[in-house]
């Protein structure tokens, strides 16, 4: 009994060391009565540090709800989410806000940047909100890696879509967060800019050990991931490690039997 408990603790410690974020038994439904929709129906997932994980699934499969719950933007009805040893569910708004600011980075599909701030100010916005200064070396590193050095003084409307997304990624990386959440980051981009954005995300995972959770419905985008989780009707229906695009298509878009 005693040894089993110790074993359990050891595994949990091991898990926290190895995983940036651990979710268990997540359930979330919207509405009530006939209009009730179950978006998450018992999801257990752990995301390894330094990995780029893609979450896929058709519309309504619950992938956006999962991302919002994991990122503390929405609260699950049931289940637990642990980030770096902190239980997320049940935190008050203030604590959750600080957690998002200090531990998470975000890249959205659109409306990513504040139009009134230039690129540099947009990148340092989370630090400014926290009242912290950027680490000079790291800021330059991120800006260089994303190729934004000559775009820092531009306002968002002076940047192309791809450049805007690169600024958003730089903003997500500059705080050295535990996890970067990217919600359809290539949805609004042409394929060349999209590819560039995905490469940059993968590089920051591989070279800097950044944990990234990417939500996408594009099998090509998912092909850049170390792992692909496929959702369907609020449950995990497939969990693939370093799959090829063909494998992903086979699982995520199975041809209907004739």
């Amino acid at each position: 009994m005693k040894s089993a408990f110790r074993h359990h603790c050891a595994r949990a410690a091991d898990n926290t060391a190895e995983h940036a974020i651990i979710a268990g038994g997540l359930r979330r439904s919207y509405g009530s009565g006939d209009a009730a929709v179950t978006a998450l129906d018992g999801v257990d997932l752990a995301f390894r540090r330094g990995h780029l994980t893609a979450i896929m699934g058709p519309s309504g499969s619950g992938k956006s709800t999962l991302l919002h719950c994991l990122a503390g933007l929405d609260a699950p009805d049931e289940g637990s989410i642990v980030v770096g040893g902190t239980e997320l569910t049940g935190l008050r708004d203030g604590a959750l806000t600080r957690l998002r600011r200090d531990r998470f980075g975000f890249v959205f599909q659109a409306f990513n940047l504040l139009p009134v701030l230039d690129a540099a100010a947009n990148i340092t916005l989370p630090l400014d909100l926290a009242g912290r200064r950027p680490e000079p070396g790291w800021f330059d590193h991120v800006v260089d890696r994303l190729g934004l050095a000559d775009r820092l003084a531009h306002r968002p409307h002076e940047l192309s879509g791809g450049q805007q997304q690169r600024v958003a990624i730089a903003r997500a990386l500059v705080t050295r967060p535990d996890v970067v959440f990217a919600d359809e980051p290539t949805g609004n981009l042409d394929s060349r800019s999209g590819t560039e954005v995905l490469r940059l995300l993968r590089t920051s995972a591989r070279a800097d050990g950044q944990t990234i959770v990417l939500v996408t419905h594009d099998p090509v985008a998912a092909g850049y991931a170390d792992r692909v989780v496929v959702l369907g009707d609020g449950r995990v229906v497939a969990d693939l490690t370093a799959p090829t695009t063909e494998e992903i298509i086979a699982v995520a878009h199975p041809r209907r039997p004739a």
Partner: protein
Amino acid sequence: MSAWSHAAVTQIRLAFAQARADAGRMIASAIAVALGAAFVVAAFGITATSERAVLNSLAQQYSSTAVVVGADGDAAVPADACQKALTRLRSGGLVGAAVIDYGGAVAIAPAGQAFDTDNSLPLSSISPAGPLRWERVLAGRLPARPGEVAVSGPSSLSVGDSVLAQGVAYGNVSDQAAGAAYPLRVVGVVDIQADPRSGTGARLYTTARQAQLLGAAPGQLRLAAGAGMSEAATLDRARRLLSATPATAALPVVSGEQAAKTIMDGYTGDTAGVTAALLVFVALALLTAAMVIANTFAVVLAQRVRELGLLRCVGATAKQIRRSTLAEAAVLGSISSTLGALLGVGLTVLVAVAFGRGVPEVPLGAPVIPISAPATAILAGTAVTLVASLVPIRAAARVKPLAALHPLDSAADADTSLSRLLLWGVLGLLSLVGLFVTAAADQLAIAVIVGVFNFCTLALLVRLGASRLTAAAGRLLNRLGGISARLATENLRRHPRRTGASVVALLVGVTLTCAVLVGVSAARATATDSLVDAYPFDVTVTAGSTGFPQDIRQRIQGLHGVDAVTPLTSGHLRVGGHEIDAVGIDVDTVSQVSRTDQSVDLPSPGHVAMSYETADELNAGDGTTVRLSGDKSDLTLAVSIAQVPGLAAGDIALDQTDLNTLSGRTSITRLWVRLSGDSPSDQTQADLSAIAKTAGSASRGAEVTANISTRQTLDSVLNFLLTVVLGLLAVTGLIAILGLGNTLALSAIERSQESAMMRALGATRRQLAATVVWEAIQQSVVATALGSVLGIVYGLVGVRAVLYGVRIDVPWPRLALLGSFAVLAGVIAALLPAWRTTGGALMDRIAATH
């Protein structure tokens, strides 16, 4: 139904639907219009109500009077003219009741105290019982015999009190008591209703006999129609009788109705100025409301740009869009100004009732609201809404159909170019110089026009440059506010026109309030100075017939609130064949009691001071000598022509030592007293009555004249004026603050997706709210700073143009208070929008970003 009318119906339906859908966003505009409309109705309603009350009161006083003789404005009636006219009318067969009304003024002294000549009361004779008696009692009864008196209005006297009264001849600043003192007993309180001639002060009524004894003069003769004779026939016969006799031919003869109307017209002449001033404030309030409306429409229509594009996509013409948005403005304007007009009616009724209950001395009677007031309010409110919305509506109608398909343009509008700002700046500067020049040249009318033009150009300059100014204010303030303040600055820069409109609306209120504060303060300082120069002593105490005992100086000096006392002595001297009263002044001690820093004309040793007239009478002139003889010795002194303050005409003044050399029978007849403290306070009246008591007990019939009371009266008049003007300006300020809050709220709604994104990135609710509050602070700081500077300049120029020898006294504490209040009001206006920014489910808005 024709195609055209069907389209029109569709448009009107769309306008109503839009107005309903955007009701929340339009609510501030609606309130602004409603406030303006309510202001119009209340201003005209209250004026009309008070005029009606006055007319009713006057009509009552002249209700049974057929003929009024000798009431022609302010022209004096010869002393016995009324009596002669009465004799003539009686002999001519006019036998109706008649009365001669006497009017005068008395100083009163509670038993054993000195007379208070500063607070003399108007005195009227009471009409004898009969058709001509209009006086009604509120309490007690009317005086029936000499020695009885009734009061009206607010006074410290109540039924049963006994006082000593003495007739008073009006002087320019202080009054002189004259004649014998009579004991009077208060027997009743008269209901005067709303006679404008009595003002809001107290008035005394006594019998005609007693009034005459107290120096009251006959003012008019009133005659009622006799039995069997109409009022018109009585008037006609009276006219013929009086014009036939030389002694009475010059007397004006009018009907009672006409006499009431003449007084009413004089009063209306006064109210015409008040009405004109009210109109200026009404116009200001409506102008500010127009700015709020224009801004709201611009913002709401900008937010509706996709919708408008969609309408264009499905085939709406630009003209149809313009029409339906104009219809929306008409719906908004007419509904809210109608509600505002109702509010104004309610306000008028409330004021009339409140006056009736709270200030029975000035009853307003039933509220009167001329139908033109609400009609004007609704028309003006709707017109202002329509005109103000025109520019934003034209811009909205230019929306391209493609706008429906594009995401909202998030790029900031460009700031106004520096060259354009420079152009307006030069124009503003030139007109400011023009203002200085015309004001210095005493061209008041032109200066007013140039001033208005100058303010318009400067307001436009501020409007165009507001976003640059808030950015500059931001650079100074943002150290305190961190990222929230920085974002606020950038948000304000995003919409320079919105920022400009909010700032200018606030600027108008702050500038005018400041100008009024500075103007009134300078006027107060200047008037106080000239009062002090003419009457440099706080209190003058004059002995009764017996003179004061020698220790009077010490007794007064020992009283609370007394700073210094200088006694003046009197003696009789002879110059040539003339008997003359001389006053001895201890010149060295005068500086201790004098308030003025100007030199007071006083006789130095070896000199005798007298007026030009007195010198003329004594065949002397400035620099010549006269030989004065007293009971002790004779002296030859040099004459200096001078106006010694407080010296009676015909008296001469000399140094006290010289007077003592001449006469051994001098007595202290007067004291000049300086009170401690520089300005009148609540304690002053108590100190004055202590002086009056001491003086009254030392010399029966002593008088106390306090120039400090005149200053106090001036202060209270100016304070009342200030309160009224600030109250009227407050409407404008309220509307401006409302507009500021509304624009902040609308901009915050517009940014809701950005706010949601920031919340995701870790912005706290407090940080988001702080951004909105900082926007308010930056705008109100700019408006307040510029408004204060402009207000001080306008206030000073204004008071310079109106008054001579202005002493500038900028009321810094009040201005600081105003400034803090304006900024605080801005912050309060921001609280609701700030709170709303942070509310709502985060997820819904994140979802909206997809």
